[in-house]
C-alpha cells in the first residue's frame, strides 16, 4: 500500500472538487463527503505507517519542469517522519471534520467550509509527502492559502477579513525568505531533492557562509509559518476563524509545518552552528514572549493561540539545541493536546453562543461535563503533568536544552514551562470553576459529534507520549532510521523532577490565584501596571509594525503615486502640451497680414541662409 500513499492527499482533494462543484446542492451533507474522504485518508495513513515501520523509504517522482540542464521533479515520499506526520494530520483533521459537523451546522456556507477543509487537508498531506523541498514549498503556500480562506471564512466580519490578510501577508514575508533560501540552495547544490542536498552539503560543496545564509532563509519561512517572533503577530488574530479551523490549522498542523520544515532540513542546519543558535534563540524568545502575553489575555482562543506560539517556540528551541527527536516529538504530542484544547474551547464557545471572554465564563464544570474533563486533560498535558503526553515531550526538550549547555536558554525554557502551566490553569479555573459570570446560560453539553472527537483527542493526549519515554525510545529509533542528526539527549532524573516541579508549581499558583483566590491577581496587576499594560497590548508589536512598516510603505506608495502623476506622467503630458503650445505660438505668427507673411518669408529666408552660410564657412 505504501506505493499508493499518494492517495492520502488525493482523497480530500476529491472531496474538495466534489464540494466545489456540487457543494451548493449538498449543503449540510457536504460534511459527509469531507468526513468520508478524511476517514479514507486516515485508514490509508495507518496502513502506510504500519508498512513503513517495517519497511523502507519509498519515493516516486516525475519530471515537473526542465530548464537548461536542470530538471525539477515532483512526486511523493514516505519517510519515517512523513509517516508519523501523516497520522498526526489525518487524525486531527478527521476529528476536526467530525467536530465541525455540529459546530458549523448553522452556517449556510458549511459546504464551502468543508471544501476549504478538504483543500487544506490535501495541501497539508501533500506538504508532508513531498520528496523535495520545492514541492514542500508549493504545498506550504497552499496551506497558507487555506489558512487565509478559513481565517477569512466569516469574511463579512471586518476583523476576520483583516486577520486573513494579515495571516497571509505575514507568513508571506517568511515565505519569500524561504523561497530565496530554496533558490540559493538549488543554485548551490543543483537540486531540490533532500538526499542530493544533504549529500552535497555534507561533502562540503557549499561553503559555510552560504549554508548559514540558506539555513537562515529557510528558517525565516519557518518563523513566518510557525508564528515565531517577530512574525508571530498573525496567529492570535487568526483566531477570528471558526474554532475547528483554529484547532486544525493554527494549533495542530499548519503552524507546526515550520517546525517540520526545520526538521526535514535538519542536516543542513546541523552544519551551521550559527543557524542552530539562531533557531534556538528565536524559539526560546518566542516561547517566553508569547507565554508572558498569554498570562494576561482574557480571550479563551487567544490564550490558546499564544500558548501555541509559545509551544512552537519550544519546539524550535529543541531543534535549535540539537533535540531533533525532542522537537518533533513535542510537535506530535502538542498536535493532539492543543487540538483537544481548541476543540474544547470550541465546544465552550459553541455552548456559550460564540462568546469567548473568559471573564464572562466560569462554573462550566457542572454544566459541560465532557468538555470540562477533556479540557482538563488537555491542560494537564500541556502543563507537563506525568504521565500525559506533554510531560514526556517537554522533558526531552528540557534535556536537549540542558545538554546544549546554554544556561540562558535553559532558564528561559524553565520559566516558559512554568508560565505554561500557570496560564493554562488560570484559563481552566476561570472558565470552568467558580460561578458562571456570563449573561447567557450555556445550553448544556454539546452533542456526541463534538464530545467524541474531544474524547478521542483526550485519549491521544494521554497516551501519545508513551511512544517515546525513558522506558523505550520507540519514536526516536523510528525517526532516526538512516539519519544522522547527532546525539539526542535524554533526561536525567533531576530533570524529570524539575519538570514535574514546574508543572506543580504553575498549577498550584494558578489554583491559589484563580481557584482559591488566596492571592489577588488584582494586587499583582496594580503593582506593575506598566508591565500589565505592556503585556495586555502584546508588547505593542502590532502598533510598531503598523508604524514602522505599513504606514511608511503606504506613504512611500502615495508619494510615488504623486511623483508618477506629477513628474513621470507630468513630463509626458508636458511634452504633449508644450508641442501644442509651440504649435499655437507658431500659429499666432499667421496674423492674417500679408505683409507679415512677406516679412517672415524674408527674415526667415535670410536667417536660414545666414545660418547656412555660417555653417558652410562663407563668413570666415
Amino acid at each position, binding site marked *: 500500500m505504501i506505493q499508493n500513499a499518494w492517495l492520502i492527499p488525493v482523497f480530500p482533494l476529491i472531496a474538495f472538487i466534489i464540494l466545489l462543484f456540487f457543494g451548493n446542492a449538498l449543503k449540510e451533507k457536504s460534511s459527509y463527503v469531507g468526513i468520508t474522504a478524511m476517514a479514507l485518508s486516515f485508514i490509508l495513513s495507518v496502513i502506510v505507517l504500519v508498512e513503513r515501520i517495517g519497511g523502507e523509504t519509498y519515493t516516486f517522482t516525475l519530471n515537473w519542469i526542465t530548464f537548461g540542464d536542470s530538471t525539477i521533479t515532483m512526486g511523493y515520499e514516505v519517510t519515517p517522519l512523513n509517516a508519523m506526520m501523516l497520522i498526526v494530520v489525518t487524525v486531527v483533521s478527521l476529528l476536526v471534520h467530525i467536530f465541525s459537523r455540529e459546530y458549523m451546522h448553522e452556517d449556510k456556507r458549511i459546504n464551502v467550509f468543508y471544501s476549504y477543509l478538504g483543500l487544506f487537508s490535501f495541501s497539508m498531506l501533500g506538504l508532508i509527502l513531498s520528496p523535495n523541498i520545492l514541492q514542500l514549498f508549493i504545498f506550504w503556500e497552499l496551506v497558507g492559502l487555506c489558512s487565509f480562506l478559513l481565517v477569512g471564512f466569516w469574511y463579512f466580519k471586518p476583523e476576520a477579513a483583516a486577520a486573513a490578510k494579515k495571516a497571509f501577508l505575514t507568513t508571506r514575508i517568511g515565505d519569500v525568505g524561504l523561497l530565496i533560501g530554496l533558490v540559493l540552495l538549488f543554485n548551490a547544490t543543483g537540486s531540490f531533492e533532500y538526499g542530493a542536498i544533504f549529500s552535497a552539503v555534507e561533502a562540503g560543496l557549499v561553503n559555510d557562509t552560504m549554508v548559514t545564509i540558506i539555513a537562515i532563509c529557510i528558517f525565516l519561512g519557518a518563523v513566518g509559518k510557525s508564528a515565531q517572533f517577530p512574525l508571530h503577530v498573525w496567529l492570535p488574530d487568526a483566531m477570528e476563524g471558526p474554532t475547528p479551523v483554529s484547532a486544525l490549522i493554527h494549533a495542530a498542523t499548519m503552524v507546526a509545518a515550520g517546525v517540520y520544515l526545520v526538521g526535514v532540513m535538519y542536516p543542513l542546519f546541523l552544519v551551521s552552528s550559527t543557524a542552530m543558535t539562531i533557531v534556538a534563540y528565536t524559539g526560546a524568545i518566542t516561547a517566553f514572549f508569547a507565554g508572558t502575553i498569554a498570562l494576561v489575555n482574557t480571550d479563551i482562543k487567544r490564550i490558546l493561540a499564544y500558548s501555541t506560539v509559545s509551544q512552537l517556540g519550544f519546539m524550535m528551541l529543541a531543534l535549535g539545541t540539537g533535540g531533533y527527536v525532542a522537537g518533533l516529538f513535542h510537535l506530535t504530542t502538542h498536535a493532539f493536546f492543543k487540538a483537544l484544547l481548541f476543540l474544547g474551547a470550541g465546544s465552550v464557545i459553541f455552548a456559550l453562543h460564540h462568546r469567548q471572554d473568559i471573564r464572562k465564563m466560569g462554573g462550566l464544570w457542572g454544566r459541560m461535563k465532557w468538555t470540562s474533563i477533556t479540557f482538563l486533560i488537555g491542560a494537564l498535558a500541556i502543563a507537563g503533568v506525568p504521565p500525559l503526553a506533554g510531560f514526556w515531550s517537554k522533558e526531552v526538550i528540557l534535556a536537549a536544552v540542558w545538554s546544549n549547555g546554554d544556561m540562558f536558554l535553559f532558564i528561559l525554557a524553565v520559566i516558559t514551562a512554568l508560565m505554561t502551566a500557570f496560564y493554562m490553569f488560570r484559563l481552566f479555573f476561570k472558565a470552568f470553576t467558580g460561578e458562571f459570570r456570563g449573561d447567557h446560560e450555556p445550553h448544556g453539553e454539546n452533542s456526541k459529534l463534538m464530545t467524541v472527537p474531544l474524547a478521542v483527542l483526550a485519549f491521544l493526549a494521554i497516551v501519545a507520549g508513551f511512544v517515546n519515554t525513558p522506558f523505550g525510545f520507540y519514536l526516536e529509533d523510528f525517526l532516526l532510521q538512516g539519519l544522522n542528526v547527532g546525539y539526542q539527549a535524554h533526561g536525567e532524573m533531576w530533570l524529570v523532577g524539575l519538570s514535574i516541579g514546574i508543572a506543580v508549581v504553575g498549577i498550584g499558583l494558578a489554583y491559589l490565584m484563580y481557584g482559591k483566590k488566596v492571592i489577588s491577581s488584582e494586587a499583582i496587576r496594580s503593582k506593575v501596571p506598566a508591565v500589565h499594560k505592556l503585556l495586555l497590548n502584546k508588547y505593542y508589536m502590532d502598533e510598531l509594525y503598523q508604524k514602522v512598516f505599513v504606514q511608511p510603505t503606504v506613504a512611500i506608495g502615495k508619494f510615488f503615486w504623486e511623483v508618477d502623476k506629477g513628474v513621470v506622467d507630468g513630463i509626458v503630458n508636458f511634452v504633449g502640451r508644450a508641442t501644442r503650445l509651440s504649435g499655437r505660438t507658431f500659429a499666432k505668427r499667421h496674423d*492674417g497680414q500679408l505683409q507679415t507673411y*512677406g516679412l517672415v518669408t524674408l527674415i526667415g529666408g535670410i536667417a536660414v541662409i545666414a545660418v547656412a552660410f555660417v555653417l558652410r564657412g562663407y563668413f570666415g
Partner: protein
Amino acid sequence: MVPVELFLALGAILFCIGLYGVLTRRHLVIVLVCIELMLNSVNINLIAFSSIGPFANITGQVFTLFVITLAAAEAAVGLAILIALYRNRESIDAIKQDLLRW
C-alpha cells in the same frame, strides 16, 4: 563703358525698393506697383547681362519680353482681384485683410 556692376546695382536697388514697398505700403495698388518694380529690376539685370555681360547674347532680351508680358498678365489679374476685394470689403487697405489667420 559703364561696367555691368552698376546696372546690377541699379537692379538690386530697384528690387529692394520694390520689396520694401511690398512689405510696408498699406495701399494694395501701391503694393502691386511695387511688385512691378521688382520685376523691372529683373529686366534691368537681364538686359544688362544681355548687352554687356560676360556672355552677352540676345536671350536675355527675349527673356525680358516674356517677363514684361507675364508681369502685365499678373498685374491684370491682381487688379481684377483687387476690384473684387474692394467690392466685398470696401477697402483695399492691406492691414484690414485679415479674415484669414491663425
